[in-house]
C-alpha cells in the first residue's frame, strides 16, 4: 500500500500558512503524475498546492483526520474523480493540520478523529478490525448474580426480572444456548427508547393517547403509532411533525450528537407512513452554565461554550445540505443542564392522505435496506471500558459514535417521494437507535396483522471491517432506510434508488410466521417458508416482546415550598438596569449570528422564517410556511420552553408552556381546532420526586388538552436527564417542550409580529402574571423562583377562542406572545424590528412572564372594542411612536445601551475564553 499526501494551503503570498489540508490517497501502485490531480483539490487562486509541510520539529502542530475505522465522507467522490483522471485510489482520508493560534480551542472528537502531533506514519487508510465471533449463553444455568452481571457487562440495561424472563423464553424455545443477538435484540426492544418502560409503568403514555382519542379531532390522521403525528392539510394533503432529543450523544460529542439529532428526526418524516417530504426544521438546545457557579467542579463535563459552538456548526452542517428551511431556532442555558443538555430538534413534513398512515408489510414483500452502509457506529458494546468483559474483543478501530452524512440522506428527499408516488412500498421505516432490530423488527411485527420477518445478516452491506453479527443487527449507522418493497414493484423501486444514487439491498422477506427471525448465510436470499440456514441468531415469536416485565417505579411527592422568593422592587429608577439584565440574558439575546447560518429560505416556501424585522435579527415566535406552490395555504409552527420556569414550578410551567405554544398560533389567526401538539418531556427518571412532577405534568397537560380540544399527536420522552461527574450529580428540572403545528387556508391573512403603524396601541391580553418567578429577570438577578402564576385551565378555551376570533376579524394589526423576557423584551424587539419607538404606560408589569398571554397592536378606534371583552383581560401597555425611542412612563431608556447588551451576549458565551 502506498500513501500519497497532496497538501493544499490558502493562497496568500507572503503569509506563512497556519492551516494545511492534506488529501491522503491510498493506492496499490505509485501515482505517476500526482500533479495531474492537483486541480481537483486546489483552484490555484484561493488555495495552492504546497510542496511540503514545515520541517522544523520544534514547531508544534495538530493534524486531525478521521480514524481508520471511520469512512471519510469525501472518500467516494474523491475516488471517482481520481478515476476520471486515470488514477485508481483505494481509500482516502482528508486531514487538516493546524499551527499556532489555529490550535487554540481546537476541538477534537477522539471517538471519531485522530490527532497527530508528530508526522503521521500511515500504513493504511482502510478500516481494520478483528472479527468478533458470536457469543452464546446458557441463561438457565445462571443464577441471579450471574444474570445481573451479564446484563451489566454487555450494557444491556435489563433488570433482573427482565433477564429472568429471557431465561423463561430460552426454556420455551427449547434452546440449549441463546446468542448475543438474542440478548441484544430483547435489550433493544425493551429499552426505554423503544418500549418506554418507565412511561408505561406510570401509565402516562396511555393518558395522553386517551385524551387525543377523546378529543376526536377530524384533522387527525395518525397519532402515536408511527414516526410522526399526521394532521390534515388541504386538497388531500397532510402535514406531519416530529421532535426528538439527542441529549446524551450531544453531551459526549456535541457535533455528532446534534448532527445525528437533526438527521434522525428528518428521517422520521421521510419514512413516516408511505413517505413524506420534509419542509421545515426547528431547533432548540439548552446548554449548561458557561461559568460554573452552581456546579463549580464537574470533572470531565463538556464545556457549555463548546456545546453551543458545535451545535451551530452541526445544525448548519446537516440542515443546509438537506435543503430544508430552518423555521425556528433558539439556544438557552441553565445550570441544571450542565450535566446533560436538552438537545431538541424537529421536522415538519408534507405528504398525501394516501401516504399518511402507517403502512403494513405483506407476506412476500422484500426487506430492502437503503442508503448508507452499516458500520459499528454508536454501539455500546464497542466502547465499553469496564474490565473483565469477556464479550469484548479487540476491535481495532471500531470505537465509533454515530456520524451524520447529510449527502446520503438528502438523496432520499427526492427518491422517497418518487417511491411514494410510484406505490413501490407497503411500509417504510427509518433507522435510528438499535438499527436493523428496531427498524425491521418493528416493521415485521405488523406483517399482515400477524407479524413475521426473516433477515439474513450476511447480506447487509458493511462499511467497516468484519463486524460481529449482533453489531450488524444493532448498528446505529445513520442515513439508512428500511422499505417493504412489493415484489411486483421491485424493478421500479430499484430503478428509483439507482436514479438517485442510493445503494439498496434485499436482505430479507416479510412472512406470516408471527416470528422475528435473523440468520447469517452468505448468498442466501430469504424466501417465505424457507428453513433458516447457516447460523441462526434469532428465532422468536413476536408475542414474546410484549411480555416485558415493567419495573416498579417509586414516585415521591416533593416537600412543600414554604418560603417564597423575593425580588427587588422595580421602579423608574432601576427600570433601565432591569431591562439591560433582561435583553442581555443568553436565552433571549440576539442570536441571529447563529440563526443566519441556517438556510431558512430553501424550497422557496418560507412566509415568516426564524428572524424578521428591518435588521433581520429579531427572533420569530411563529414560523409560517406556504408549502404548496400556487396556493395560499399556510402551515404554522410554534414552540415553547423555558428552563427557568420548570426549575421554579414544573407543573405550572408545563401548563403555561402549552398555553404559550397554542396562543402564539391562535393570536395569529389559526383556528383552535386546527392546532396539533407535540410533547417532549425531559426528566431525571432515577429521581422519585422528578417522576412525581412528571406524572402531575402529564395530568395537567391532559386536562388542558381536553379543555381546549388541542390534541397531542406525537411526542417523545427522555428520562435520562442526569449527569454524574466526579460524584457530582446534576439533574435537569422536570421539563417539557411543547410544539404546536397549525394550518390556515390563507397565510396572507395571518397576523404577524412586526408593528405596522405609528399611533397604534399595544394591548396585553390574557392572564397577567404578577410574580417574577421563573422569569428571565429572575434568572439574571440570580434568584431561583418558587411558584408561578398558572394559567387557569378552565378559562383557556374561552380566552383562546376570543383572541382567535378577533385575529381573524382583522382587529389585530400585529401580535406576539408574551413569553420569555416579558413585555419589556417584546417592546424592545418591536422597536428593533420596526424602527419605530414606544411609550409604555406601565413599568412594574413589564417584567413578569405571562405565558399564554399575548401583546397585540390595535388602532385607537378598536381599543374600545377590547374593553368589551372581559374574558380577554385587556391591559393597555402604551403607544407606538414615530421616532426610535423607548420611553417608560416618561423616562427615556438608552436604546443604544440596550442594543449593545442584547447583541453582545451570544458571541461572548460561544466564543469567550471560558
Amino acid at each position, binding site marked *: 500500500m502506498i500513501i500519497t499526501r497532496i497538501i493544499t494551503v490558502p493562497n496568500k503570498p507572503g503569509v506563512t500558512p497556519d492551516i494545511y489540508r492534506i488529501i491522503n490517497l491510498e493506492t496499490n501502485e505509485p501515482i505517476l503524475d500526482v500533479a495531474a490531480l492537483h486541480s481537483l483539490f486546489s483552484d490555484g*487562486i484561493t488555495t495552492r498546492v504546497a510542496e511540503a509541510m514545515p520541517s522544523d520539529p520544534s514547531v508544534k502542530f495538530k493534524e486531525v483526520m478521521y480514524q481508520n475505522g471511520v469512512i471519510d465522507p469525501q472518500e467516494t467522490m474523491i475516488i471517482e*474523480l481520481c478515476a476520471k483522471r486515470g488514477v485508481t485510489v483505494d481509500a482516502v482520508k482528508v486531514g487538516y493540520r493546524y499551527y499556532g493560534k489555529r490550535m487554540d480551542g481546537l476541538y477534537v472528537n477522539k471517538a471519531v478523529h485522530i490527532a497527530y502531533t508528530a508526522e503521521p506514519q500511515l500504513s493504511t487508510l482502510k478500516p481494520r478490525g478483528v472479527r468478533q465471533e458470536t457469543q452464546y449463553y446458557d441463561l438457565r444455568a445462571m443464577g441471579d448474580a450471574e444474570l445481573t452481571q451479564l446484563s451489566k457487562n454487555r450494557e444491556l440495561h435489563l433488570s433482573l426480572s427482565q433477564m429472568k424472563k429471557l431465561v423463561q423464553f430460552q426454556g420455551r424455545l427449547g434452546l440449549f444456548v441463546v446468542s448475543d443477538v438474542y440478548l441484544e435484540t430483547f435489550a433493544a426492544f425493551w429499552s426505554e427508547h423503544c418500549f418506554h418502560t418507565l412511561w408505561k409503568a406510570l401509565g402516562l403514555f396511555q393518558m395522553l393517547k386517551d385524551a387525543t382519542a377523546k378529543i376526536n379531532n377530524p384533522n387527525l390522521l395518525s397519532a402515536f403509532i408511527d414516526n410522526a403525528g399526521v394532521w390534515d392539510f388541504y386538497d388531500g394533503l397532510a402535514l406531519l411533525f416530529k421532535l426528538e432529543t439527542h441529549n446524551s450523544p450531544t453531551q459526549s460529542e456535541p457535533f455528532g450528537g446534534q448532527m445525528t439529532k437533526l438527521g434522525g428526526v428528518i428521517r422520521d418524516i421521510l419514512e413516516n407512513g408511505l413517505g413524506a417530504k420534509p419542509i421545515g426544521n426547528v431547533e432548540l438546545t439548552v446548554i449548561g452554565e458557561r461559568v460554573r457557579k452552581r456546579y463549580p467542579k464537574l470533572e470531565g463535563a463538556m464545556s457549555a461554550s463548546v456545546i453551543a459552538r458545535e451545535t451551530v456548526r452541526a445544525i448548519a452542517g446537516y440542515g443546509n*445540505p438537506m435543503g430544508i428551511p430552518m423555521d425556528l431556532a433558539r439556544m438557552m442555558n441553565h445550570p441544571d443542564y450542565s450535566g446533560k443538555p436538552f438537545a431538541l430538534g424537529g421536522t415538519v413534513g408534507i405528504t398525501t392522505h394516501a401516504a399518511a398512515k402507517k403502512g403494513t408489510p405483506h407476506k412476500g414483500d422484500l426487506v430492502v435496506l437503503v442508503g448508507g452502509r452499516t458500520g459499528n457506529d454508536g454501539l455500546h458494546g464497542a466502547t465499553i471500558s469496564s474490565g473483565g468483559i469477556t464479550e469484548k474483543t479487540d476491535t481495532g478501530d471500531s470505537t465509533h459514535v454515530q456520524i451524520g*452524512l447529510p449527502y446520503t440522506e438528502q438523496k432520499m428527499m427526492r427518491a422517497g417521494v418518487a417511491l411514494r408516488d410510484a406505490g413501490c412500498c407497503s411500509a417504510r421505516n427509518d433507522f435510528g437507535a438499535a438499527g436493523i432490530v428496531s427498524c425491521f423488527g418493528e416493521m415485521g411485527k405488523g406483517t399482515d396483522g400477524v407479524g413475521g420477518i426473516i433477515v439474513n445478516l450476511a447480506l447487509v452491506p458493511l462499511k467497516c471491517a468484519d463486524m460481529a453479527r449482533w453489531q450488524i443487527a444493532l448498528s446505529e449507522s445513520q442515513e439508512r432506510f428500511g422499505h417493504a418493497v412489493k415484489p411486483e414493484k421491485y424493478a421500479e423501486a430499484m430503478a428509483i434508488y439507482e436514479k438517485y*444514487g442510493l445503494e439498496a439491498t434485499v436482505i430479507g422477506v416479510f412472512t406470516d410466521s408471527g416470528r422475528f427471525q435473523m440468520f447469517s448465510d452468505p448468498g442466501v436470499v430469504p424466501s417465505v417458508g424457507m428453513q433458516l440456514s447457516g447460523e441462526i441468531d434469532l428465532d422468536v415469536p413476536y408475542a414474546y416482546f410484549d411480555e416485558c416485565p415493567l419495573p416498579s417505579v417509586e414516585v415521591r411527592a416533593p416537600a412543600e415550598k414554604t418560603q417564597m422568593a423575593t425580588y427587588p422592587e422595580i421602579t423608574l429608577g432601576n427600570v433601565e438596569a432591569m431591562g439591560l439584565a433582561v435583553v442581555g440574558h443568553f436565552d433571549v439575546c440576539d442570536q441571529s449570528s447563529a440563526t443566519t447560518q441556517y438556510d431558512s429560505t430553501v424550497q422557496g416556501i*418560507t412566509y415568516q422564517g426564524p428572524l424578521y424585522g428591518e435588521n433581520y435579527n429579531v427572533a420569530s415566535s411563529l414560523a409560517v410556511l406556504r408549502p404548496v406552490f*400556487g396556493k395560499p395555504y399556510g402551515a404554522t409552527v410554534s414552540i415553547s420552553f423555558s428552563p427557568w420556569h420548570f426549575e421554579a414550578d414544573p407543573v405550572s410551567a408545563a401548563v403555561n408552556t402549552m398555553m404559550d405554544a397554542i396562543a402564539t398560533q391562535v393570536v395569529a389567526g389559526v383556528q383552535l381546532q386546527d392546532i396539533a401538539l407535540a410533547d417532549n418531556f425531559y426528566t431525571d427518571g432515577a429521581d422519585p420526586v422528578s417522576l412525581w412532577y412528571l406524572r402531575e405534568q402529564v395530568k395537567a397537560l391532559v386536562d388542558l388538552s381536553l379543555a381546549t380540544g388541542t390534541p397531542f399527536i406525537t411526542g417523545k420522552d427522555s428520562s435520562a436527564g442526569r449527569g454524574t461527574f466526579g460524584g457530582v450529580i446534576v439533574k435537569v428540572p422536570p421539563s417539557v417542550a411543547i410544539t404546536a403545528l397549525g394550518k390556515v387556508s390563507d397565510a396572507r391573512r395571518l397576523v404577524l409580529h412586526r408593528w405596522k403603524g405609528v399611533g397604534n396601541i399595544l394591548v396585553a391580553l390574557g392572564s397577567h402574571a404578577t410574580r417574577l418567578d421563573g422569569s428571565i429577570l429572575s434568572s439574571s438577578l440570580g434568584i431561583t423562583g418558587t411558584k408561578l402564576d398558572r394559567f387557569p385551565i378552565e378559562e383557556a378555551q374561552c380566552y383562546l377562542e376570543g383572541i382567535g376570533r378577533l385575529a381573524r376579524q382583522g382587529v389585530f394589526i400585529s401580535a406576539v406572545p408574551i413569553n420569555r423576557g416579558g413585555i419589556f423584551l417584546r417592546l424592545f424587539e418591536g422597536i428593533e424590528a420596526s424602527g419605530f419607538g414606544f411609550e409604555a404606560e406601565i413599568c412594574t408589569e413589564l417584567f413578569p412572564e405571562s405565558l399564554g398571554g399575548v401583546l397585540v397592536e390595535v388602532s385607537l378606534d378598536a381599543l374600545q372594542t377590547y374593553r368589551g371583552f372581559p374574558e380577554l383581560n385587556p391591559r393597555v401597555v402604551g403607544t407606538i411612536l414615530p421616532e426610535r425611542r423607548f420611553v417608560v412612563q416618561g423616562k427615556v431608556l438608552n436604546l443604544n445601551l440596550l442594543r449593545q447588551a442584547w447583541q453582545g451576549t451570544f458571541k461572548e458565551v460561544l466564543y469567550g475564553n471560558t
Partner: protein
Amino acid sequence: MATRRRVSVLYAPGTNTEIETMEALRLAGGDPYLVFLKDIIKGKVRITDCSCFVVPGGFSYGDYPDTGVAVAELLREHLTLLADSGIPIIGICNGMQTLIRAGVFFGSGLAMAENESGDFVSRPVLHRVEDADCVWTRGLEGRVLVFPAAHRFGKLEGTGRVNVVMTYEGASPSGSKVAAICDDTGRVMAMMDHPERPPDSEQGLAIFRNGLTA
C-alpha cells in the same frame, strides 16, 4: 399561443433547489425539465437539447472535495459543448460555484472563496443591477432587487476579467461587492443569491423571463 421554451435544470446528487427553480421557470413561461447529470454522462440526454440551461443551488456531491468541483469535473466536456452552443445559461449559488470552477465560461482566473465571515449566510440581501450587456438582466439595469443569500463560499476572487451584472447594495453576505457576473457573450450569468425564492417573486421572475426570451 406561443410555445413554452424548454429549459433544462441540472440535477446532481446533493442538488437541493431544483424544485423551486423549476416552479419559478414555469411561472416565468418556461417548460422546465429536470436533467440528471448521470444521464448526460451516459449519453441518454444531450446537454444542448434545450433553449435555456440552469445549474441550480445545493451541495452537489456533498461539496466534496470542494464546492462545485465534482460537477465541473464530471461534466467538463459537456459544459464545453454547452458554452459553445450559445444557449442562455444561469448558475445560481452552487450553480455559480460550478460554472466558475469549470473554467469554460469565465476563464480560468476566477474562484469562489469562503465568505469573509467564515460562515454560511442566510438572509435577505439587496442587489443593484449594473449596466452590463447581459440577457438575464436586460431592462432591469439600475434597479435594486431583493433575493435571499444562502451560501458560505460566495466570494468571487481572482484576476480574471469579469463583467459585473449585479453588485451588493448595503451589507454584502460574502464580503465582496460582486453579486453576479456574466460572460463576454452576455448569455451566461452566474449569481450566488436566489431569485427563485420564493418562486413567485416578481423580481426573480423578471430575471427568468429575460433568460427565456433571449
